[in-house]
Every structure is written in structure tokens, then in C-alpha cells.
């Protein structure tokens, strides 16, 4: 079937065609989603061990390994959080479960950690890079040594400024790039592991000690509390608390969840397993091997800021091979750590945007860049704070590490508490995944496992309050400051917030006017096409039916919204779609994300929706046209009008049958055009 000729009846009915190019409408496989998370979460392998070593001595690999095992529980927590499909990550979950104040506190704490993740990653990358230069200089016999702290600060500033610009421009790093970085890292990890085992076979090896030897700095205020040091379990929790910075980036999973393709729940589980396995091997395994192979005195004096480089340089073998290995580690480290800088900017910007959507932030924060369409004021603020943190740190990774983990721990405390409450508040909601250890009681699943996890998280977070002085002072201070800013801003923005609340959340939609329907559908490449006409955001049962049954590998789903219009200007670019279509497409995007199926959203301006649907279906060569039932007219008059319009528009024999369906709550009226 071809597009009706210009002479045919309805040719003039479609006045303007707008393709909505919101990036979130493409979905990625689980392994790419895992790679995106790992580029952030996995990057802690490059600094967590060194910081833990300085805090409590040579027992650090045991605790890093324990934290990596513990990450499995947190990933399961994220699985249940995602299965509730409350968009917006931990902040929205906490808001849903525990209310506005707790959500603002959790968000404030999390932003503190996001702001630190950037500098700690960037500065660590600088250390690795400088360490490599110094190794080459030493190998070449040069008598000079580059100042690591200065170079790492300069490199940190450079990387942050680079990603600052990228984020303002709205240029997203591709998940394919993340996958390549992780594949390369895996290869490096494999080589390191093999070589480590050879080294151990040649030089002998013994397990790291388990005794804790806290530095005075790492004891913090607990140094003055004698009973805390006498209880072994408290000591272990203190060491664990100093190691939780290895969890940096794990929360990224809830950010990439919306991008995971169908079947979403299964793919999310696969991604979580992959993340867990990789983190355990990469962060846990390599940190452990470093402790076994690098002499403890070198870890404490030379390699605490670039532990994995130390591992390469401590292997058995010729120096040139060690240098090559170190270079590979540095390439992999710089790529992953830089990725983490970017993720920290994206994460904090995204979190601030979620807060802004709730009307908490004033319009100044919500201001959209005229050219790039990004929330550039938020990005500017975050990047400037990150640059300041890098300068204040003066390249001291340990200081940054000591400040870190306040937010992530307390945010997880809030999140797990919220999920526990949601077990009651949303008892009827079907969950694709539930955190293990539950007791069924009437209609409820009592979350024994979650309660235990919550207890443990609270304990570690409380112990950290005493031991991680920098984190406590800076974290509490920053969180209190940000919470005050949010509260004040919310009060100033109260009137606007009420309007936003009444309107509901609106997806920011990028729209582009195209010449005609043919251009709008030019990128469809699957053999089957279904056109779904939408009108009312409250009535998308038919779209949900299509998305729950469509095969994403074979089918393009076109979602068409016909905006009734009398007079329109042709070829006028729309920066942002008007309010009503935003509401419709927000609901469409929500469903597309829920099912992980890509859709092609198209808005047409037309003075007759039935003509527009028939023409669009003809141009798209759709095999199915699906509509929802109209509450005003009913399904039969709708399908009568649709078949009449189809007849009026049609001027060629069909290449294949086309089925017209009107769907509503378990019912269907359909008609099949066969010629």
C-alpha cells in the first residue's frame, strides 16, 4: 500500500507532522545497562582499596570483598525498588514511601555523594596517569618525578570542565562506549589475574591479615570512646564503614532502569547479576590480589592512590611488560573514572530535576538552555562545586574518600525504609521482584530480609558518624544546607508548585517538525508495524495491550497523536511541545519505559483525526491500527467512521491485510481490510 496521492480525498487533512525525539524512547540490552552502571560502580576498584588500607591497615581486601558481596543485597534492593516502577530513583521511592521531608533529606545526602564522586574519580584518574608517567620516567632513567597531587588536581579540573560542557550541550555518552570500556576492563582484569597467579606461584603468597589496625584519623571521635574499640563487632563495622565507598555508583542502576529493553524485569535481573559478578571479580578480586602481591609497606607508602598500578608494577617479569600492564590499567582506569565523573554530573542533574519537577526548586534552577535544551543552571552549580572540591582536596584522594559515603549510606537507609513501608502502602501492587526473606501474612509480605538490611545499614551509618569525621561534618553540613535551600525554595515556589502538582509531571519532549509523514517514518526498520492512535492520557489501555504483546525485534510501534487544529504554520520548528501533547506523550513514554519497548511518537496537526490516522497508517505501511475506545461515542461509531475514512483515503490495492482494532478493558471491535 502506498501513501494516498495528493489528489485523494484526505491528502490535505494532515497539516503538520512533528516527530518527538525524546532520547528515552530507545532501549538498551541488559549487558549495556550493566556496562553503564559498571563504568561508575566498577571505578571504585581504583581507589577504594588504597583508602581502606590507610584507614585500617592490611586487612582491607577482606572488607572490600565483604562490601562487594554486600552490594548483592543492595542490588536486590534496587530490583525491588525498580519493580515498583516509581520513576525517579531513590528520591521518588523515598517520597512515595516516607513523604516529602524524608525525600528531601535523602536527596540532599545523595547529592552530597554525587558531588564527591566526580572529584574523587577525577583526582584518582590523575594519580593513575601521573603514576604511569613517573614509572616511564623512572624506567627511562630520568631523575625527575612529576608532582602527583598537582597533576591529579589539574587532570581532575580538566575532566570535570570537559564533562561540564558535554552535559550543558546535552551530549550523552553512549552505552556502547560504556560496554567497550567494560569489555576492555574485563580483558585487563583477566590478564592481571593470570599474571598475579603466575607471580604467586613464583614468589609464594599468603592471605592478608584480618587484624584491624585503625589509624588515629580513621577512629575519628570513636578514638575517645574506649568501649567502642573493645567490641570486636564494632571494629568490624568501623572497617566496613571505611570500605563502603567501594559502593560508589551502585545507585546508577535505578537511573538506567528506564532504558532497559523488554522484557524489562528479567533484563534488570540479568543486569544486576552481571554487575554483581563483575564488581566482585574486578573490585573485590583485584583489590585482594593487590594486597597479596604488593608488599604492604609499598601499599602504605607508594601505591595507596593508585593501587592497581602498584599491582602491575609488583608482578614477576620484565619491567617493560609491567609498564605495559600499568599503561593498560591506566587507560582502563582513566576511561572508567572519567565515566564516573560524567555519571556524577548526570546523576545529580537528574536528581535535581526530579526535585524541580515536584515544584521544590524555583524557576531559576529549572531554566532550560535555549540552544541545547538542558537544565544548565543546575549543571553549572554542580560542576562549580565539584571544581571547588577538587581544588580544596589538593589531590588528596584519602581526604575525599573519608568525606565520601555519608550520603550513599543514609540514602540507602531512607530507601530501604521506604520500600519496607511500601510493602504495606502498596501491598496490592504486583512486584516482579521482592527482596528475599518474607513472611506471608494475610495480604502482606512481611519483609524480614529488608528489616535486617535496614538494621545493618543504620548500624554502619551510625558507626560512620563517629569514625568518618570529615564525612559527618561535611555530609551533615552540606545535607542541612541543601535541605534548607530546598525548604526555602519550596516555600518561595509554593504557588508555582501547586500549579505543577495540578498539572502533574510532564516529560520534557524534544520535538522536530518534518516535511511529511514519509520522513517521519523513514527510520522504521522492522518488518511489522503497528500504529497506535492515542488521545487521552488516562485512556491508554490499548497502547498497553500492544506494548505487552508486541515483539520488539520484529515490530515498530508508532504512537500517533492527532492534534486538532484549524490553521497551522508549515515547517515551523517546535522547541517544546505544547501542554496537552506533553501530557499525552508523558503517559506514552511512561508505558514505553514500563514495557521496555521503543515507540516512535508522532504528533500530527490535523482537522480530522480519522483521516490523519488512515493516512499515517498507509504511509507507515502498518499491518495493524489500534485505537482506544471513546467514552463519548463508543466503539461501534468509531470503527464505522474509521472504515469509512479508510475507504475514502485508500487508492491502491493493499500489499497485505490491515487490521483495525478498537480495544478497551478486555474487549475488542475489529475489522480486517483484505484488499
Amino acid at each position: 500500500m502506498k501513501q494516498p496521492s495528493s489528489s485523494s480525498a484526505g491528502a490535505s487533512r494532515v497539516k503538520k507532522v512533528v516527530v518527538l525525539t525524546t532520547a528515552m524512547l530507545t532501549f538498551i540490552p541488559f549487558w549495556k545497562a550493566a556496562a553503564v552502571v559498571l563504568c561508575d560502580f566498577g571505578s571504585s576498584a581504583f581507589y577504594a582499596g588504597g583508602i581502606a588500607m590507610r584507614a585500617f591497615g592490611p586487612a582491607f581486601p577482606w572488607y572490600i570483598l565483604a562490601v562487594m558481596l554486600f552490594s548483592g543485597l543492595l542490588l536486590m534492593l534496587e530490583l525491588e525498588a525498580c519493580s515498583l516502577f516509581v520513576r525517579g530513583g531513590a528520591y521518588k521511592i523515598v517520597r512515595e514511601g516516607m513523604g516529602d521531608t524524608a525525600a528531601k533529606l535523602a536527596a540532599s545526602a545523595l547529592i552530597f555523594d554525587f558531588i564527591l564522586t566526580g572529584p574523587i574519580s577525577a583526582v584518582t584518574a590523575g594519580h593513575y596517569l601521573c603514576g604511569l608517567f613517573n614509572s616511564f620516567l623512572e624506567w627511562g632513567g630520568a631523575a625527575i618525578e612529576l608532582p602527583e597531587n598537582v597533576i591529579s588536581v589539574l587532570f581532575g579540573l580538566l575532566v570535570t570542565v570537559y564533562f561540564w560542557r558535554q552535559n550543558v550541550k546535552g551530549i550523552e555518552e553512549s552505552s556502547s562506549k560504556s560496554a567497550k570500556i567494560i569489555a576492555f576492563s574485563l580483558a585487563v582484569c583477566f590478564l592481571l589475574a593470570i599474571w598475579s597467579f603466575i607471580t604467586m606461584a613464583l614468589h609464594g603468597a599468603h592471605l592478608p591479615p584480618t587484624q584491624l589496625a585503625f589509624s588515629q584519623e580513621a577512629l575519628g571521635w570513636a578514638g575517645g570512646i574506649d568501649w567502642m574499640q573493645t567490641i570486636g563487632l564494632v571494629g568490624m563495622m568501623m572497617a566496613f564503614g571505611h570500605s563502603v565507598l567501594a559502593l560508589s555508583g551502585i545507585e546508577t542502576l535505578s537511573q538506567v532502569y528506564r532504558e532497559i529493553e523488554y522484557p524489562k524485569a528479567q533484563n534488570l535481573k540479568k543486569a544486576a547479576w552481571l554487575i554483581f559478578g563483575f564488581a566482585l571479580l574486578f573490585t573485590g578480586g583485584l583489590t585482594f590480589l593487590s594486597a597479596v602481591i604488593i608488599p604492604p609497606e609499598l601499599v602504605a607508602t607508594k601505591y595507596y592512590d593508585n593501587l592497581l598500578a602498584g599491582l602491575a608494577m609488583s608482578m614477576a617479569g620484565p619491567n617493560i611488560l609491567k609498564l605495559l600492564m600499568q599503561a593498560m590499567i591506566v587507560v582502563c582506569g582513566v576511561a572508567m573514572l572519567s565515566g564516573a565523573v560524567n555519571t556524577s554530573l548526570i546523576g545529580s542533574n537528574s536528581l535535581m530535576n526530579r526535585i524541580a519537577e515536584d515544584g521544590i526548586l524555583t524557576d531559576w534552577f529549572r531554566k532550560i538552555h535555549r540552544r541545547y535544551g538542558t537544565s544548565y543552571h543546575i549543571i553549572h552549580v554542580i560542576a562549580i562545586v565539584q571544581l571547588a572540591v577538587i581544588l580544596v582536596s589538593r589531590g588528596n584522594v584519602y581526604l575525599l574518600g573519608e568525606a565520601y559515603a555519608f550520603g550513599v549510606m543514609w540514602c540507602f537507609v531512607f530507601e530501604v525504609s521506604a520500600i519496607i513501608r511500601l510493602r504495606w502502602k502498596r501491598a496490592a501492587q504486583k512486584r516482579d521482584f521482592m527482596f528475599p526473606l518474607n513472611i506471608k501474612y494475610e495480604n502482606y509480605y512481611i519483609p524480614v530480609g529488608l528489616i535486617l538490611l535496614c538494621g545493618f545499614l543504620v548500624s554502619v551509618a551510625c558507626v560512620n558518624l563517629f569514625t568518618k569525621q570529615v564525612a559527618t561534618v561535611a555530609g551533615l553540613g552540606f545535607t542541612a544546607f541543601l535541605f534548607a535551600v530546598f525548604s526555602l525554595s519550596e516555600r518561595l515556589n509554593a504557588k508555582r508548585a501547586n500549579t505543577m502538582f495540578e498539572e502533574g509531571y510532564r516529560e520534557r519532549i524534544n520535538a522536530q517538525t518534518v516535511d511529511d509523514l514519509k520522513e517521519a517514518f523513514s527510520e522504521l526498520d522492522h518488518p511489522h508495524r503497528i500504529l497506535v492512535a492515542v488521545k487521552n492520557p488516562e485512556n491508554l489501555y490499548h497502547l498497553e495491550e500492544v506494548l505487552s504483546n508486541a515483539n520488539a525485534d520484529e515490530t515498530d510501534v508508532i504512537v500517533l497523536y492527532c492534534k486538532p487544529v484549524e490553521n497551522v504554520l508549515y515547517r515551523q520548528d517546535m522547541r517544546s511541545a505544547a501542554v496537552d501533547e506533553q501530557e499525552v506523550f508523558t503517559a506514552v513514554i511512561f508505558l514505553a519505559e514500563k514495557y521496555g519497548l521503543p515507540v516512535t511518537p508522532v504528533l500530527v496537526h490535523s482537522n480530522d483525526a480519522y483521516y490523519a490516522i488512515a493516512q499515517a497508517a498507509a504511509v507507515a505501511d502498518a499491518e495493524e491500527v489500534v485505537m482506544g475506545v471513546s467514552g463519548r461515542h463508543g466503539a461501534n461509531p468509531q470503527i464505522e467512521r474509521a472504515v469509512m475514512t479508510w475507504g475514502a483515503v485508500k487508492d491502491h490495492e493493499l500489499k497485505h491485510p490491515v487490521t483495525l482494532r478498537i480495544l478497551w478493558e478486555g474487549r475488542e471491535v475489529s475489522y480486517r481490510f483484505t484488499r
Partner: protein
Amino acid sequence: MSTNEQSKISLGSLITPARVLLAEDYPSKKELISALVQAVCRDYKQLDPADVAAQVLKREEGISTTLDTGLSIPHARLEELTDFAAAVAVLRKPLRETSGSELPIRVMFLFLSPAKPAFFQKHLQILSALAEKFKPEFIEELASLSNAEEVALRLAR
């Protein structure tokens, strides 16, 4: 989902010269519908013209049955019918409603179907086929014919 086997519809079996109304123009859509209902009901004694007209007009209050080709297909599904029935009006001057919200009508095809669900797919098939057949060129051709017999003959072809 039920499917239908589409075949060319024979308008000759639905339209006889007695059910063709050829006019220069007509004052209103409502009156034109009433005239066509009268034409059909002459052959179907079981139908009450007032009741049929009321049902057709009620349907007209919903989604428009007028296409921008100039074809209007007012229709209703009636319990009393066991087969399809129709009448057609061809206007030389387009009928324009005073409200101005309706499209101009050049041909009105009154179409009555049995209400039983078994006929619904055929009902849809005929609606589609009518819309496909009555393109602007065909309507022009009908309007140029001089009497009802010629119109019926042309439709039967």
C-alpha cells in the same frame, strides 16, 4: 477477532430507481435524511419512517458520517431488518448546513443494516466500500446524470 471476506459490493442490489433522489439542492441535511428514509420505508412495511429517521439522526449526533469527498453516509442498525437497505440522493449543488461546522454534501447514501451482530462485519465492509467508490470524480459523474434511472444504472455497473 472476526474477519471478513471483502468482495465488490453490488450497489445494484441495494439501489433501485425508486430509491434515488436526484435534486438541484436541498434545504437541510435532516430533511434530506427524512426523504431518503421515506424512500426506503416504502419497500419495508415493517419499518416506521419516524422511528428510523430518529435512529439515523441520533447516530448523526455522534461522529460525523460525512467525508470530505462530499459523500455522507447516514446509517443505522435496525432490529426490524434482516438484510441491508439503502437509498441515495445526488445533489447538483452541495448541501451546506447553516452552522457551517459540517462538510458540504454532494451525495447522501442512507444505509440501513440489520442489528444482529452477525451482520456487523458486512456493515463495516459496505461502509468502507461506499467511501472508496464515491470519490470526487465519481460524484461529479453522478451529478451530471439526468435522471434516477441513469443514476441507479451507473451505481449498478
